[in-house]
């Protein structure tokens, strides 16, 4: 008896929807196992991790807060991955975006006008786009592996940020702490809906919806999907793989950079040596869990954000290390990828001898 993969005639629409749910269920199962191995009641731990944060307003707000950058970065990454451009350096694009966006309030603190915030967001997007342009140009021009270059630039970006906040951008009145000056009010992203969420959340949702429309209804969206699935067919219809590499990286970089600026201007209010708990990497999981579809990504971003909050919750309530959050995130991506097999293949139980007999008949 053996299990065999049989290719489906077409993608299973049912599995397309079910596979992320199966993956989440399997992740919860695995997480329960880890909790019980480390000597905790798995049911209570799972409740504290996945359910309880949804029942209280403050933790719900915190989850939305964390989900926002994940969704924004994930949307950009989805365009990259759909078109077969493996940008895994969103973390670096996030950081450089934050640096560009902070240039105004850090270097010109007196510049307090209504234009301050829009300019910051613009600079942030430009910064992220420029940083993403490096691996894109190298790929388009020299065919350099974009996976490795974009990842290497993450390390460079965080070293640049480290240099700035410890060196030239350090707060002159900050007792030598490695942090920039606090942003003025006009450089701070306001809260909306009576303090329920930062302005970054509605901005992100609008961008996600626009992107969903572009992907589903426009020629550009068609180009992105065709070039991802069959670059050869795409090039016959006149689409340029190089052009799309540049486009997808710039878009992803701009969104990551925007997310970076909104993070420092909304939440942190200053630059610190580390400004991201790995949003750029977690967003990769978000993009895949969300089926590379902006609406899916909104849901997936919320799920992954929950894992950050849940990690904090089990740490404070049960003394489980919050490192469990990144384990669960990693497991989730594994299960998502494994379950996606079900979209293209189905399993069949076969007996070895019958398979052998079939071949002899042929």
């Amino acid at each position: 008896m053996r299990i065999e993969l049989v290719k489906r005639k077409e993608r299973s629409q049912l599995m397309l929807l079910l596979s992320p749910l199966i993956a989440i269920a399997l992740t919860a199962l695995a997480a329960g196992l880890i909790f019980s191995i480390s000597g905790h009641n798995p049911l209570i731990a799972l409740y504290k991790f996945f359910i309880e944060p949804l029942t209280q307003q403050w933790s719900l707000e915190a989850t939305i807060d964390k989900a926002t950058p994940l969704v924004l970065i994930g949307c950009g990454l989805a365009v990259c991955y759909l078109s077969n451009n493996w940008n895994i350096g969103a973390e670096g694009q996030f950081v450089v975006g934050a640096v560009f966006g902070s240039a105004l309030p850090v270097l010109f603190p007196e510049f307090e006008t209504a234009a301050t915030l829009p300019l910051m967001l613009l600079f942030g997007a430009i910064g992220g786009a420029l940083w993403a342009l490096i691996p894109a140009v190298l790929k388009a021009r020299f065919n350099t592996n974009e996976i490795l270059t974009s990842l290497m630039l993450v390390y460079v970006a965080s070293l640049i940020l480290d240099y700035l906040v410890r060196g030239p951008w350090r707060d002159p009145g900050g007792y030598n702490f490695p942090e920039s000056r606090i942003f003025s009010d006009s450089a701070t992203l306001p809260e909306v809906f009576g303090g329920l969420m930062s302005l970054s959340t509605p901005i992100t949702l609008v961008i996600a919806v626009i992107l969903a429309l572009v992907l589903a209804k426009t020629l550009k969206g068609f180009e992105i999907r065709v070039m991802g699935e069959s670059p050869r067919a795409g090039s016959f219809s006149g689409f340029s793989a190089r052009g799309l590499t540049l486009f997808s990286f710039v878009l992803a970089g701009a969104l990551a950079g925007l997310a970076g600026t909104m993070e420092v201007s909304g939440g942190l209010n200053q630059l610190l040596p580390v400004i991201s708990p790995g949003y750029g990497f977690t967003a990769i999981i978000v993009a895949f869990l969300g089926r590379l579809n902006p609406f899916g990504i909104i849901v997936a971003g919320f799920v992954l954000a929950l894992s950050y909050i849940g990690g904090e919750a089990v740490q404070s309530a049960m003394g489980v290390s919050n490192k469990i959050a990144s384990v669960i995130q990693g497991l989730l991506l594994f299960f998502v990828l494994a379950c996606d097999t079900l979209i293209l293949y189905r399993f069949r139980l076969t007996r070895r001898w019958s398979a052998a007999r079939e071949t002899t008949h042929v």
Partner: protein
Amino acid sequence: MFEAVLLTVITAATPLLIAATGELVSERSGVLNLGVEGMMIMGAVVGFAVANQTGSGALGVIAAIAAGMAMSALFGFLVLVLVTNQVATGLALTILGIGFSGLIGEAYIGVPGLKLPELFIPVLSDLPFVGPVLFRQDAIVYLSFALVAVVAYGLFRTRLGLVLRAVGDNHGSAHALGYSVIRVRFAAVLFGGACSGLAGAYLSLAYTPQWVENMTAGRGWIALALVVFSSWLPLRVVVGAYLFGAVSVLNLHAQAVEIDIPSQLLSSLPYLATILVLVLISANRRLTLVNTPACLGKPFVPDR
């Protein structure tokens, strides 16, 4: 002075050399495993933990190898049996490895570690100048050279190596000839995992005998770049690893001679050098096309 510099270059190059050699074997069989960083960090934390618990460095090293192999088995199952996307699955392995290592290692932060002993090779270690540098190293350094020699010989001088390369260059033909593509690839992936685990153990048991979160600091990714740099030839991996070892210790020695450069700039040199090297290699199309395994990263589903 020069001896001291050379010594640090060797210790910085060894983990890169080991991990890149393992990945080279995996890629030669046609499997791109981007999870080197994750397997390496698991090797580092498991090696440290076991050595700490048992007091035996050797057991730590063995456990690290086993951890790397376990991680790669997970990857192999997904990529080879479930035919998942190799790039995405490799990324998942790295994310998972970094997460798990953080969880396991939390108890060991700040715990003094165990350093593998140096083995003095009789006679040779007494040679003037080269003796102390080359022949007073720990076992893993010697092992790294043996590893490269075995892989170089095995890949190009043995039947097994021929089969492995055939599977990586044309899995359809290899399958038609009756070789089990999946089995050969699984073995190659496991070998890569073992090497990454060993490289991780070297970091936490010899390079800096302690556990620090994220202590691999991108070395797994640099090892991946080294495979490209070597254009899939084991002996060139040695050159690349030592070149990168030299770049990555610049920081250390620049501080000693008090050059006034931001330390962050020096720290970023290995990453910038990686990008530069990748560009130079990939710009030379002939070099990359000749040796790149033709089926690298391509999924294989045997039809019956």
